């Protein structure tokens, strides 16, 4: 233990703890900006670049950044001396002097840490006015918008991109006043190996990185009389949307969300969970087939477009590994346009499929060439959880007061197996539930595969599926995926099945989810909510979903049938790694 004093109050903390953490223990909040700590992923971004957290330490000639200065025995720290306050205010002043300050029209308005800091520190004017750095905006991708004028060089996005995800697109470029975070050579994002996971967007404390918004496109579609507009909502959305309306994190708001969507004018409100059940039918069929043949193992899940693109760039020699099953979003689009439109008696081009996703890569996925037919996309517009919340607010819907309502049939019916797709491990667990039944030929009662749950980056389990020993792994966060794939490539690990999600923790922590600014307890609550929702469902196995059974009976035939392959499966493309 180390004993020190902060603002004359004694405190004892473990060796290696920073002044910031020691102060927290005393209930003293030292303002920070660049620092972020994601406890549940064991990630700490401690670059010490913003200098907002400087404090006075007796005997030290200059001020110390609290976020990266380890405590020492006998240290005498003062957080609120005039010297520290002035320095802190000057840092904020300087940051604002090089910032557009267009808060009212900024996508991050009220979600901005810089704005919050200016308010908390009562900075009412900028003293050191001067030239502002300007850069071209990058709107090249369908997913992530970059406005570098707003970049404050906190480098959080870099940690997300390079340390957490090991994608390696974002880094500091240029130097001095022109220094900024960008892809090498200022390449537009769509010409890089960016996978659009959006972890950088979640990490960005200001409006430099935001999603490419399609809210207006949705309004246009909703107001187009000639179009039938259907919407699908991903599993993880329901566990986080409420946060945007001040509802406690970890609340499931499916019923209110469905009501709101209907009020906004969607013709049909459907559930991606339905398509998740469908995915399980196809993917499990493939899994059992590959395991029986002992070929092309392990099978990797393919629900996550960020992960798929990562594989295409970083491990092009392994592209035979993922299941050929499309993601639930794309399966939904294909079924809506080819099955449901037929049922309604309308042409696919007269139907608009809107997705509400926790994810930014889904925007990119929906635009992939292989998911269009004759120029008509299976999924037309993708908005994030945050965008949906914005639209609900814009529509004047008082979300918190809404009554619950149910999804429309037939693409709205789902099971507990589908809702856990929103958490890391959920896809694999859902597949195992179906595989167990199919292999045993009975309704297996043991369906909670606890070993694959939880937010840890890599989980391994050998599960007994109706007498068959299946070696499985679950991985979330692309850095973890890289570790696992390297081991597989080098023959150091053998599995039958692996679930991989690009975002740490899975879709509940997707790039399109409400901002949580480092408070990872919120992620735990979202995860618990999803498993609670699973428990609450009457049917908890995908293959028992009556609407799915009907879909096969009426339309697709068997899982893995020719038609199923045509509509529900896809292929992957090796891509350059730069």
């Amino acid at each position, binding site marked *: 233990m180390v004993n020190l004093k902060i603002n004359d109050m004694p405190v004892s903390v473990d060796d290696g703890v920073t002044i910031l953490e020691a102060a927290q223990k005393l209930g003293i909040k030292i303002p920070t900006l660049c620092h972020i700590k994601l406890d549940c992923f064991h990630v700490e971004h*401690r*670059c*010490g*670049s*913003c*200098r*907002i957290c*400087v404090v006075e330490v007796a005997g030290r000639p*200059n*001020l110390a*950044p609290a976020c*990266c*200065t*380890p405590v020492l025995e006998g240290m005498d720290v003062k957080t609120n001396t005039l*010297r520290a306050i*002035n*320095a802190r205010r*000057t*840092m904020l002043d*300087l*940051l604002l*002097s*090089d910032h557009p300050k267009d808060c009212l029209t900024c996508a991050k308005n009220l979600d901005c840490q810089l704005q919050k800091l200016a308010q908390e520190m009562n900075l009412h004017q900028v*003293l*050191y006015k*001067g*030239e502002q750095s300007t850069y071209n905006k990058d709107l090249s991708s369908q997913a992530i918008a970059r406005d570098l004028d707003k970049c*404050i*060089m906190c*480098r959080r996005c870099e940690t997300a991109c390079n340390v957490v995800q090991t994608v390696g697109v974002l*880094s*500091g470029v*240029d*130097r*001095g*006043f*022109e*220094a*900024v975070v960008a892809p090498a050579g200022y390449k537009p994002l769509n010409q890089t190996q960016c996978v659009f996971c959006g972890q950088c967007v979640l990490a960005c404390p200001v409006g430099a990185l935001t999603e490419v918004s399609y809210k207006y496109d949705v309004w246009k579609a909703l107001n187009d009389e000639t179009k039938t507009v259907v919407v699908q909502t991903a599993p993880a959305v329901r566990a986080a949307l409420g946060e945007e309306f001040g509802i406690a994190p970890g609340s499931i708001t499916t019923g209110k969300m469905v009501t709101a969507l209907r009020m906004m004018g969607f013709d049909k409100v459907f559930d991606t969970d339905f398509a998740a059940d469908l995915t399980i039918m196809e993917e499990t069929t493939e899994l059992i087939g590959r395991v029986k043949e002992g070929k092309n193992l392990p099978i990797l899940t393919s629900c996550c477009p960020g992960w798929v693109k990562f594989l295409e760039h970083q491990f092009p020699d392994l592209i035979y590994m993922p299941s050929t099953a499309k993601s639930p979003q794309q399966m939904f689009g294909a079924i809506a346009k080819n099955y449901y439109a037929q049922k309604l008696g309308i042409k696919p081009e007269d139907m608009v499929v809107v997705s509400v996703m926790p994810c930014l890569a889904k925007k990119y996925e929906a635009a992939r060439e292989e998911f269009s037919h004759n120029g008509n996309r299976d999924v037309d517009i993708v908005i994030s959880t945050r965008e949906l919340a914005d639209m609900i607010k814009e529509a004047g819907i008082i979300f918190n007061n809404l009554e619950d309502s149910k999804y429309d049939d037939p693409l709205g019916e789902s099971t507990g197996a589908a809702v856990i797709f929103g958490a890391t491990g959920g896809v694999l667990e859902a597949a195992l539930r179906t595989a167990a039944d199919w292999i045993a030929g009975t309704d297996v009662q043991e369906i909670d595969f606890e070993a694959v749950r939880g937010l840890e980056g890599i989980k391994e389990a050998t599960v007994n599926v109706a007498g068959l020993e299946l070696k499985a792994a679950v991985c979330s966060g692309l850095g973890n995926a890289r570790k696992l794939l390297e081991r597989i490539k080098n023959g150091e690990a053998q599995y039958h099945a692996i679930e991989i999600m690009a975002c740490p923790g899975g879709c509940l922590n997707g790039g399109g989810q409400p901002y949580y600014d480092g408070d990872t307890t919120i992620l735990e609550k979202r995860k618990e909510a999803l498993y609670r929702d699973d428990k609450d469902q009457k049917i908890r196995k995908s293959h028992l979903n009556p609407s799915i059974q009907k879909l096969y009976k009426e339309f697709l035939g068997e899982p893995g049938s020719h038609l199923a392959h045509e509509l529900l499966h896809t292929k992957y493309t090796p891509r350059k790694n730069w």
Partner: protein
Amino acid sequence: MFIASKDALNSYAAKIKGAASAETTILVSMGTCGIAAGTTPVLKAIRSEIAERNLQNAIDVIEVGCMGLCHCEPSIEIINNNTGKRIIYGDVAESQVAAIIAAGSDTPAQGTRTVERTWYYPEFETKPASALQAKIVLRNTGRINPEKIDEYIAEDGYQALAKALTGMKPDEVVNEIVASGLRGRGGGGFPTGKKWQFAAVQKNDEKFMICNADEGDPGAFMDRAVLEGDPHSVLEAMAIGGYAIGAHVGVIYIRAEYPLAVKRLQIAIEQAREYGLLGKNIFNSGFDFNIEIKYGAGAFVCGEETALIHSIEGMRGEPTFKPPFPAIQGLWKKPTVVNNVETYANVCAIIRKGADWFKSIGTAGSPGTKVFALAGKVSKVGLVEVPMGIKLRDIIFSLGDGIKDGKAFKAVQTGGPSGGCITSKSLDTPIDYETLKGLGSMMGSGGMIVMDEDDCMVNVARFFLEFTLDESCGKCTPCRIGNRRLFEMLNEICDGRATMETLDKLKNLSRTIKDTALCGLGQTSPNPVLSTMVNFEDEYLAHIQEGKCPAGVCANLIHYEINDKCVGCTLCARNCPVSCISGDRKQKHYIDQTKCVKCGVCYQACKFHAIDKN
């Protein structure tokens, strides 16, 4: 040749020393500066003259590194090996070579410029009364051919390594360096021995010895001179350090803009390997040490040790917060010592002669010598190595021969862009790490820029700040944005747009940047501003309150007017680049102030003192 043991080294050295030398030796300065000034044709002329006179056996010609005489390159030194008499010629032209050879080594040739020797070598000479310089770091630079390892061995080269490896335990080596009081010559002045000690006590199979050769101060070229003139001294010192701390790999991080230094280092490493002085089981001691070279792209900030380490690792060259210090967690997260070239160049002499000998030179707190690159408005620019504790007056007015063109001394900037300016009232302060700091400046790596009455100190501060502005990595807020704002405020002052409030803001922000910046670059970047504000407050006030630049430098604050002495010769009008001067022949001329760009050409052209600069 392979030298397998200490005895083998001794007998080989004795053999080389014993070899008959010619009656006369001519040293030709072939450093980058000498070559740039035209030494190559002079060298060629010397060789052909010798051949013509058939004196090949009587005269040895040795291409050496920089002799430090920048003000009179090309320079050569002629030594009579029998009498020890020597003549140093400066500004040697090809046309003078024949006369110089003909004159021999006893009397200087007619019509040439000779230079007085102002230095001695403490290691093997007693101090002549007149010698202000003491060369330890530069003991071989300018004396031996840096591309021939034998010449280094003949000058006790690799004796220190042999002594350390065969006669001392690693901790004894560390203790010797600690006892010597040697401090880092790259800027901070941290005790070198302590750095080694920190790394030595770390338990780790892998450690690294790094040489920081990323010299980047404007006008500084001390390290380049050592690497070009005596590369083996650095290699040998790194190996000694490696032995002391338990490292087997050394890395020299050198800027790619030093091609000659790189080439000579490569040759030196190759030769040392061939001789077994680098590589496995050196001197049969069981100690292995190898050195590799990494190239920098010339970013000033990469002189900061954590930034340098990141650059070697292939990352963006920017500093990270310390702790952990490199000695605990450095290159590839292994214990690492980073010393600069000049620091290493002291090590062998300390091991050979002992800590007490080293401490007998310099001051108690800063033993040894310091190499300075003397530049600016001084008459004799060049490289000088002086004992710590010398007065600035001795460097500038004796070694540098005072201010050019008889102008008045105004200030001297030490420590490069991170340092501060020192005025005439402090010229007699004995300088070492502490006193320079006390004067609001710093030792830095040894750049020394002299300014005269024609320099505007606000503009000087702006010049240095512009350098750090360009060279900042942009990582932390105070350095990235704060320095920019300082620069903008200095522009306002130089342009006459500033108010007294600007001055307050300038001072406050400068202090805050020093207080908050992440690395040494940012923490010291406002020094030129603060020190000029203290020492030349009147100049700042003149700019702001009177709208005048006393030195007549800031274009916006000066204007030229033609007075009644004008005879209408039209010379000014003909020279004006923007044709803003009009007037008939033999009539008084006029300057159109709206068009004048204040270039000063008319002022210089006028032969009648008819143009006033206000």
